[in-house]
């Protein structure tokens, strides 16, 4: 009984240690003022973060090697990099991840149609404005007599991109509007077309480009006024040297009106022209997107299940161990991982761990998914091991086999046979859940679907296609697992 109490007491330091670990992560934003510009010049590259679903500012389109990010903001980034004498590298991620990426030094700079707000200015530094945008409302053409401005949205629901200025604007402007936030503009357009929402508040220029690619919707002036609609470049807090340098470029751009006269028209040239061709043929043109998505999805899944099983075995054995320290570590790991959302884990690995060592998105995704899968596999394996009759291991021990050998030759082979169907399920789940890695910009199926959506302005067809692809993959896998299940149990049970 005494022993039991002491175990519990010693569990606390482990939890404390873990909290400390978290605290360290959150404090890595060292303010090392003005080595920023120097660092980037030594590095030779300036990494720009952007959320490429915002044409004409930033969007994905077919380039020479697969999907590429184009847009007026990218051209501005190009210009800033050029003036610094370095190369520009563009990283894509979801809009609400951008500022986090900046704070954790995943990117050096964010240009993504970003408006300066006092809240944002607390965590990052902004340059002067390079462009003044307005807010427009997108509505269905059929509603044009009903909705003339934001005031007519009373009692209706309107959409806006999560984290965008327009989201706050519409919310503040009309208290009677139900505001629906979505991460992706394409989803908003879909929602509008299918009458889930009555209007979308978005940047005027972006709204124009969606109107030009979608029949049935139109833009009206929102009638909203705000001082916030200046687009600015964001740098990490304290990166004054970078802000100064970029402001020079921006000054040059604004005095010559380059953004409106050159960057936007240039970008529009890259925008896809195949908007109204038939679905089937236009989707076929994007097969390379889907194929590269399948490759990434399979790579993530196979590597993750491999490490997941290894971690699973280790933690299952630790949890079954008589050594209470090993046991406690395993319990903490398993319970913690199973008790937190996988999406959060992926973001934590990418942004949190990434603040210490620079891990690419794909690797981060694989690490996070392996760790996640390890916890579930550990419980499956533990169940498998405990289901093996005690007599089996007693017989092995009585013959002089060590505990390890007993596990390896007698218990685990039998356990694996029993848990094979459960492992198959886990693999299928893992393949489906790998889609979450798209939040940090891993180019798997889900991400590629977004790219195709953005490029073709077709909302539903790409979704249907990846649904079929996912099903074909998972169905094939479960058939293969079934086949091997038959093989293993041959001769033994039943």
């Amino acid at each position, binding site marked *: 009984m005494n022993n039991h109490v002491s175990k519990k007491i010693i569990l606390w330091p482990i939890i404390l240690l873990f909290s400390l670990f978290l605290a360290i992560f959150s404090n890595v934003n060292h303010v090392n003022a003005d080595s920023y510009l120097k660092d980037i010049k030594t590095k030779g590259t300036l990494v720009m973060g952007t959320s490429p679903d915002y044409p004409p500012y930033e969007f994905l389109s077919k380039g020479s090697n697969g999907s590429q990010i184009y847009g007026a903001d990218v051209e501005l980034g190009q210009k800033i990099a050029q003036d610094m004498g370095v190369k520009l590298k563009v990283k894509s991620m979801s809009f609400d991840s951008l500022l986090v990426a900046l704070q954790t030094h995943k990117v050096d700079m964010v240009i993504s149609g970003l408006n300066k707000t006092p809240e944002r200015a607390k965590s990052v530094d902004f340059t002067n404005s390079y462009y003044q945008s307005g807010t427009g409302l997108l509505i269905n053409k059929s509603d044009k007599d009903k909705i003339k401005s934001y005031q007519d949205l009373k009692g209706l629901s309107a959409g806006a991109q999560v984290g965008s200025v327009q989201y706050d604007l519409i919310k503040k402007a009309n208290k009677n509007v139900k505001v629906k936030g979505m991460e992706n503009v394409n989803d908003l357009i879909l929602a509008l077309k299918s009458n889930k929402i009555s209007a979308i508040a978005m940047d005027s220029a972006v709204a124009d480009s969606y109107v030009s690619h979608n029949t049935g919707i139109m833009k009206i002036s929102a009638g909203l006024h705000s001082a916030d609609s200046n687009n600015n470049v964001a740098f990490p807090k304290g990166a004054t040297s970078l802000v100064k340098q970029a402001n020079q470029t921006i000054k040059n751009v604004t005095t010559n009106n380059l953004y409106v006269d050159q960057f936007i028209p240039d970008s529009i040239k890259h925008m896809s022209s195949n908007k109204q061709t038939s679905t089937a043929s236009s989707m076929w043109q994007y097969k390379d997107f889907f194929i590269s998505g399948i490759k990434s999805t399979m790579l993530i899944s196979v590597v993750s299940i491999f490490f997941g099983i290894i971690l699973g075995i280790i933690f299952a054995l630790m949890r079954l161990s008589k050594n209470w320290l090993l046991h406690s570590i395993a319990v903490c790991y398993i319970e913690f991982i199973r008790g937190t959302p996988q999406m959060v884990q992926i973001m934590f690995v990418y942004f949190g761990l990434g603040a210490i060592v620079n891990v690419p998105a794909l690797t981060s995704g694989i690490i996070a998914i392996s760790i996640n899968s390890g916890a579930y596999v550990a419980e499956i394996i533990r169940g498998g091991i405990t289901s093996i*009759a005690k*007599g*089996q291991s*007693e*017989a*092995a*021990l*009585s*013959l*002089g*086999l*060590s*505990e390890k*050998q007993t596990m390896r*030759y*007698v218990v685990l*082979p*039998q356990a694996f*046979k029993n848990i094979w169907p459960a492992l198959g399920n886990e693999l299928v789940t893992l393949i489906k859940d790998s889609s979450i890695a798209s939040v940090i910009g891993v180019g798997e199926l889900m991400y590629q679907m977004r790219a195709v959506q953005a490029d073709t302005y077709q909302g539903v067809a790409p979704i249907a296609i990846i649904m079929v692809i996912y099903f074909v993959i998972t169905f094939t896998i479960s058939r293969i697992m079934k086949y091997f299940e038959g093989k293993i149990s041959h*001769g*033994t*049970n039943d």
Partner: protein
Amino acid sequence: MEPMIKIENLTKQFKDNVIFKDVNAEVYKGNVISLLGPSGAGKSTFLRCINMLGEPTSGKILLDGKDLVSSSPKELIKLRTNIGMVFQNFNLFDNKTILDNITLAPIKVKGMGKVAAEEKAHSLLKMVGLDNKSDVYPNSLSGGQSQRIAIVRALAMDPEVILFDEPTSALDPEKVGEVLEVMKELAKQDMTMIIVTHEMEFAKSVSDEIWFMDDGKIQEKQAPKDFFENPQTYNAKRFLSKMI
């Protein structure tokens, strides 16, 4: 002559529940001991302590002078290879063929070559008349066949002593004979054995010594004839009167 196994003050208790206390006993090479007693007397627990499958609370178990209780895990593995065990429920490895069941320990523990181990397995299987079963899996065998294989598996390690934990209790009555037959044969070959059993006739005919266990103690250690004809303790008398 020194005893092969010497048990000193062996005690086993779960919290306050004493299973047996301060048991002392000796087994000499070639001896066949039958451990009798009413159900719940702790016979199986005692037997399982001898090869440390159950950990005794205190006391010593000396095999050729070396104590198993205080030995390190590595030493224990070494000592265990000298002590075979046959279980009530056979405990053949379900995932392995009969041949692999028998050769696993000789190959992995003793480092024996595969060919030599298999040769040995075949000759032992012939001895129990089951060489034709070498490639099948345990689930296709009858109880009597399984138990004979389990004995062969223990023998393949050339143990100094074999512990039998109620080897015929899980068998259909008509299968009991074939297993006892094999055990009798081993006794004839001077194998040292400790047998927990309820087969009184068998115990009487095959044993060199009967240990009678009850109330957490070995109450009597007698030659079979003396024990069955002239039990000394009240407990033994009561036990025998119920068995006959």
